């Protein structure tokens, strides 16, 4: 008994110390969050700020329940997610397509170089005037703005990743008789560039989320729009509900993306 105890002690204490470390950082994180919530609650409660201007966290659940019960919350989430997804898919598809073409072909790269130089610095939101002139204050306008924001990020990621593809692997394709562009694209370029493209997509995921809210603040129905409506009525608790909703949705989407990315890149060391 005593012998087994002495032999197992170092290992088990090592494990428990590691567990304590993990638990410790979770505990610290929770403590930090709690402190944040307490300060947030105290500031309006102590009258440091008018509660009309800053609702405390304890006011939020009730506000959420009423928004949820009226169906407003669900409608806004659905609206935003549909703009987001559509813009993300369109922007990513165009960005990957053009990025891959300019990455594979020197001619395409040179042809687009100056256009890219002119258009790239224009922020997605600077397209809002044209989005509204062309499409009105409609979901299409929001999708347009999001698409542009996503496009540039994904375009540059895909272009760079394709340019960096190992020439040696392209030779493998040629040595085995795959000499046509589409064969090299599918067998070498795309899989080899995938890690870089995914990094761009993940950045775009966050950028698109900002573009959604911004586009909706112009009046396209969704989270951003509902938030502005609430603020006009000084319903600051509802504004906070939507701010937290944005954080939660983005967190979920990003986690989902990470899981997918890890699966796609499971071949990496």
């Amino acid at each position, binding site marked *: 008994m005593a012998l087994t105890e002495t032999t197992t002690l170092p290992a088990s204490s090592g494990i428990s110390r590691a567990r304590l470390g993990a638990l410790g950082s979770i505990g610290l994180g929770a403590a930090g969050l709690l402190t944040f919530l307490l300060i947030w609650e105290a500031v309006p409660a102590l009258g440091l700020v008018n509660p009309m201007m800053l609702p405390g966290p304890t006011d939020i659940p009730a506000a959420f329940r009423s928004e949820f019960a009226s169906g407003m919350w669900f409608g806004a989430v659905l609206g935003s997610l549909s703009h987001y997804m559509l813009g993300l898919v369109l922007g990513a598809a165009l960005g990957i397509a053009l990025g891959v073409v300019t990455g594979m072909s020197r001619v395409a790269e040179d042809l687009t170089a100056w256009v890219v130089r002119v258009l790239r610095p224009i922020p997605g939101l600077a397209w809002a005037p044209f989005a509204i002139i062309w499409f009105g204050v409609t979901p299409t306008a929001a999708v347009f703005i999001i698409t542009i924001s996503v496009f540039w990020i994904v375009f540059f990621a895909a272009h760079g990743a394709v340019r960096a593809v190992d020439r040696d692997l392209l030779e493998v394709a040629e*040595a085995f008789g795959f000499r046509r562009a589409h064969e090299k694209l599918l*067998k070498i370029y795309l899989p080899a560039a995938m890690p870089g493209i995914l990094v761009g997509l993940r950045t775009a995921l966050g950028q698109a989320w900002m573009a959604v809210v911004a586009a909706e603040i112009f009046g396209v129905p969704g989270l951003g729009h509902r938030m502005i409506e609430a603020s006009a009525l000084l319903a600051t608790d509802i504004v906070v509900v939507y701010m937290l909703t944005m954080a939660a949705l983005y967190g979920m989407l990003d986690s989902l993306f990470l899981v997918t990315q890890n699966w796609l890149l499971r*071949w*990496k060391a």
Partner: protein
Amino acid sequence: MESVIAHVIDIRGLSLAFERDGRRTEVLRGLDLAIPRGAFVAIVGASGVGKSTLLRVLIGLAKASAGKVAVSTTSAARQPVALVFQDSRLLPWRRVVDNVSFGLEGSGVSRADRRARALEALGIVGLADLANRWPHQLSGGQRQRVALARALAVEPEVLLMDEPFSALDAISRESLQDEVTRIWQVTGKTILFVTHDIEEATYLADRVVVLAGAPGRAVADHAIDAPRPRRRGDAAGAEIVADVRRHLGGARGPAH
């Protein structure tokens, strides 16, 4: 006698030059080489003499400036030649079995048949049980075996090997040398094996062709008739090693 044997590779007056920064570099000039079906030929020479370039011309990765290169083929294989690179060059995003079946894609072979043939090729190199690994999980020797299986899977007439074992440790190298000898004996493939290691060449091949000079040309052609299985460093081999070495040295002298 010689004319009766069908040559699977017939190289006549092969020259190759490329231009870089306005300077013309001649890599090969007037190379003649005929290789009978089923032969195991080693090509030795110093680095930069155009050994790898010769293989690149045969596989279609480089274009001859002059001369004729003919690879005759009896089978309907899409690829009469397959190349094993010096570094394994496996595709890291494909599992081992999918790396091996790579060359079979787009040739009308069904997915199931491709897999079956890949597993068969992996069996030949003794790695069937690693079929579902990722390349990064393999050792250097295993990766090179997979690369060999990938080349064998397309059932080429000629197996080209470009210093395939030079990056391996001595133990892996020796075991792969014996493996290639065995595979050659079992499959009867023609093997063109490029190496800078004279001992390796004389241990493996029936015939050792020495390339030397700049631009490179064939300066010696030795038949190695030592019986198999061979022993490393046996007397007959050592004699030829010395002779090849003399040819290499002799050819290098006047060229510079």
